[in-house]
Structure formats: structure tokens, C-alpha cells
């Protein structure tokens, strides 16, 4: 009898916790949709320019969010493209080749790096852009490249630790199979270990995508501006959705402007969801290819 009560209580507690988390998320998304949906119009995105001209005609958009959408995509793509190779390589090193004290120290170091506030990373990025300005060329300054580089530093620990723990989670009997057939460690890595831990590695990258899309503090200091248009090169300043939302909600002059902010929040949600969808599709496709290629 007593045990039954306990079991029910634990189960109810778990359900309640799950319900609470899910309903919180639903409430936030629902609020953004309710406030933002009526204002997500072509005009919000493209301003006075027609969608076709903006998308295909190269017409500049001055009073719409389109440049911020494109800027966000570029930013995320750039940061993940920088973080992925470095993070994967470091994760592989930590899991497969690093041993003993050095491994412990590095692992703690990356955990600490994961906890560094993003504004500090932003300041670092800002210093880098100052340095480039002084040492390399006075034309250089805060720009898309510096922002992507700083975001890379922000998300690198996630990618590294996800890769490391995915690889370390490969069971011993799987780990030694290819070795027992005479594979060297690199062949074992390419043929068995990475395909086996691909889902975990991809999850780290997904987390990185989400983090890059939403972070504001880093880009605030490294190149985002209110009006820049669609960036033409990596060395241009750029617009981004999270920054737009931030500055509209802190400095709006009229209720309409705040409504545009809600519209932008909804678009940012849409951008994040589509980035996740792309990442999931890639994960499925590459995962299957890695496991069953001929």
C-alpha cells in the first residue's frame, strides 16, 4: 500500500514537471504568435519594395526585416561553418588521443569556456576587430566575419563536448571491432567511431545553430547595426533579427513599432525552426550515408 502511494506520488510529480515545462514553452510561443502573427506581412519583411524585386531583382530593402533575416542566416551559417571543423577535431582529439592529466585540464577548460557570459565573448570579438583595424587595415572593423568568429568561440565548447561525449559513449565492443580486423586508429575513427556517434555529434551542432541564431550580446559588440542592407561581403556590417527585436523593444517610439518587434520575434522563431529543420534533414541524410554507403 505504502509503496503504491510512493509510486503514484513520484509519477504525478514527474508528469507535473513535464507538463509545467511544456506548457511554459507553449505559452511563450503562443504569446509570440498571438502578438506577432497579425503583423507578419510582406510589408514587414520588404517595406515598400515588392517581394519579387527584393528577392530576385536585387532591390535594396530599407524599411523591412529582409536584410536582418538574411544577415541572421549568414551569421549562423558562418559561425557553424567555422565551429564545426575545429570543434569536431578538438572533440575527436579529446576523446581518442588525449590522455591523463592534460585531458582532464582541457575538459574542465572547455566546460569553463561554455560558461563564459556571451557579453564577455562579445568584448573579445570587439577587441579583435579593433586589433584588425589598427594592425591590418583601417577599413576593417566590426563586421559579419568578426561576429561569426566570436559566435564560433561561444558555441565551440558545445560542439567539442558533444563530440567528445558521443565518441566516448561508443561501447568498448564496437570500439575494438575494426581494430581486431587490423584497422588503424584513423580507419577505426572514420569507419566505425564517427558513424556510430554521429547522432550525438549532430546534436551538438544543432545546439550550436540555436545558440548562434538567438545570441544578441556577442553581435551587439561585433558588427550588427540598425541599417546595413543585405551584406555584400564578410567584411560588411550587417543586420540581424535578435538585435532588431532588442532595440525595438527597448527604444520603440510608437505602439506600431513594438508590434513590428513582435512580428520580428515570430520571424526569428520561423528562421530558427527552419534552420533546425535543415540541420535535422542533413543529420538524417548524412547519418544514413555514413552508415550505409557502398
Amino acid at each position: 500500500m505504502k509503496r503504491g502511494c510512493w509510486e503514484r506520488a513520484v509519477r504525478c510529480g514527474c508528469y507535473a514537471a513535464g507538463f509545467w515545462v511544456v506548457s511554459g514553452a507553449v505559452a511563450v510561443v503562443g504569446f509570440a504568435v498571438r502578438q506577432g502573427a497579425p503583423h507578419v506581412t510582406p510589408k514587414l519583411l520588404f517595406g515598400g519594395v515588392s517581394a519579387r524585386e527584393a528577392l530576385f531583382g536585387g532591390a535594396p530593402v530599407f524599411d523591412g526585416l529582409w536584410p536582418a533575416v538574411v544577415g541572421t542566416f549568414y551569421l549562423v551559417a558562418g559561425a557553424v561553418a567555422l565551429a564545426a571543423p575545429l570543434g569536431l577535431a578538438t572533440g575527436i582529439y579529446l576523446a581518442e588521443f588525449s590522455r591523463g592529466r592534460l585531458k582532464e585540464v582541457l575538459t574542465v577548460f572547455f566546460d569553463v569556456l561554455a560558461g563564459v557570459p556571451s557579453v564577455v565573448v562579445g568584448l573579445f570579438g570587439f577587441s579583435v576587430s579593433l586589433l584588425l583595424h589598427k594592425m591590418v587595415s583601417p577599413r576593417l572593423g566590426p563586421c559579419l566575419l568578426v561576429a561569426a568568429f566570436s559566435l564560433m568561440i561561444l558555441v565551440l565548447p558545445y560542439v567539442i563536448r558533444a563530440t567528445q561525449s558521443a565518441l566516448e559513449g561508443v561501447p568498448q565492443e564496437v570500439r575494438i571491432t575494426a581494430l581486431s580486423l587490423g584497422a588503424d586508429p584513423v580507419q577505426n575513427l572514420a569507419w566505425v567511431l564517427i558513424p556510430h556517434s554521429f547522432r550525438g555529434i549532430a546534436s551538438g551542432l544543432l545546439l550550436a545553430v540555436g545558440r548562434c541564431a538567438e545570441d544578441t550580446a556577442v553581435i551587439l559588440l561585433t558588427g550588427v547595426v540598425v541599417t546595413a542592407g543585405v551584406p555584400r561581403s564578410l567584411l560588411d556590417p550587417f543586420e540581424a533579427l535578435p538585435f532588431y527585436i532588442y532595440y525595438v523593444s527597448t527604444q520603440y517610439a510608437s505602439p506600431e513599432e513594438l508590434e513590428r518587434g513582435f512580428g520580428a520575434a515570430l520571424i526569428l522563431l520561423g528562421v530558427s525552426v527552419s534552420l533546425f529543420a535543415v540541420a535535422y534533414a542533413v543529420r538524417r541524410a548524412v547519418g544514413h550515408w555514413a552508415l550505409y554507403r557502398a
Partner: protein
Amino acid sequence: MTTVGEIHAVNPRMTCRRVNVYYGDKHAIKNVSIDIGRNEVLAMIGPSGCGKSTFLRCLNRMNDTIEGCRVTGTITLDGQDIYDPDLDVVLLRAQVGMVFQKPNPFPKSIYDNIAYGPKIHGLAQTRAELDEIVETSLRKAGLWDEVKDRLDHPGTGLSGGQQQRLCIARAIAVSPEVILMDEPCSALDPIATARIEELIHELREQYTIVIVTHSMQQAARVSQRTAFFHLGDLIEVGPTDRIFTRPRHPLTEDYITGRFG
């Protein structure tokens, strides 16, 4: 402890002398000397934790992959010291194949599972040659007729017994001389076990086989020689029928009569 029985084989393929294995401070294998004869099946029996699997893994240097593991003594394959620093461990593992306790096919197609070893060792120049190796290996493992129409299906989709035969075929595909089997039937049902035991009989004509087993009946059925390990010592070794009918060491007798285990 001195080993009772006949450690020498008439025509040895592998020779182990004064082999010691340490895991950090733990002395896991103590001064073991034994020969493994050509085309014989040597069974290694003993209670859990007696070191038989550890010793097995010395024979293709799989212990190298374990951190903190140290092996001393000499082990030779056809007269060549396998712990010679100049020896290519990749080649050694091609010569001494291994089959594990749990069937562990790669999560890839049946074909790729077999083709992997030959590919990394460059055993086939053309696709046709590779096809032939795959077919021959699967035939030797008695699996060809069951899988020939679905070579592109994942190896993990086979039954447990078929997966284990796939792993045996995978080991055979690199043309080894010795096959090490670490409790290959412990995860299988009696019918699949019988099939693997038949296979061991057939393979013996071409290969030297060392099998670790928990089942004394299995040791009696498949092997010509049996080695009994206890707490890291090789207690007794000799012809299987003699070990099971007239053991010379009291520990061996206690073990095979079920007084401990």
C-alpha cells in the same frame, strides 16, 4: 604456479612463454607458457575473472588498446615475436582474427561488413575479386545461402546466430591463420550454438582456433586441447578427453566436477 600437463604442441603455430599481464598494479596473468598447435582447436576454460579472455587478447595484441595494460614474456606466431617493436600490429591482426562474445556487425550492409577487412588490407584489386572474397567468406561461415539475395541489407538486421556467423565470415575474409573466439556462443540460443560449433569443426581444417568458453560441454565438443585457468594461473593443459576424464590437478577436478565455478 607450475602448469600441470602438456604445454607443448607437436607442430606449434603460436608459442607463449612466461607471459605476464598487468592491469596497473593488478597481476592478471601469471607466468603462463603454452603452445597452440596447427589446425587444432584449443579451448580455454575457467571461472569468471580467471584471465582466460585477457590471455586470449594477448594473442593478437588487443590488450594494446586498453590503457594501463602491460604484457611481458614472449609470444610468437610462426617463430616471429608478435611483441617485437618493429612488428606491424595491423598485419598481426590480419593474421590473428578475432570473434567477440556479443555479435557485433558494423551497422552497415552485409556485403560491407565482410568487404571492410579486405579493403583496408588491399586484398582485392577489382570489384569482382572483392565479390569473390565476400562470397567465399560467407560460404565458409555457412551463411551464403541465407543472405545471398540480400547482401545490401544491414548486417544488424540478421538474427543473433546469423550475426555471429557474419562476424566469423568477417574475420575469415582477411585470410587469417589463427582465429580467436571469446565466448562466441554465450549470447546465442542452443540451435545457433550448435551451428557455430559445427562451423568450428569445419574451420579447423584450415585455421588454428583458440576459443574461450564458459561451457565445459562446449569445450569437450569442439576442442582437441583444453587449458584450465584459475586466478591468472594456467593450472592444467592437455588433450581435452584426458582433462575431462582424468584431470591431474585437484583444482581442475573440482572445477569440472562442478565443485566451484
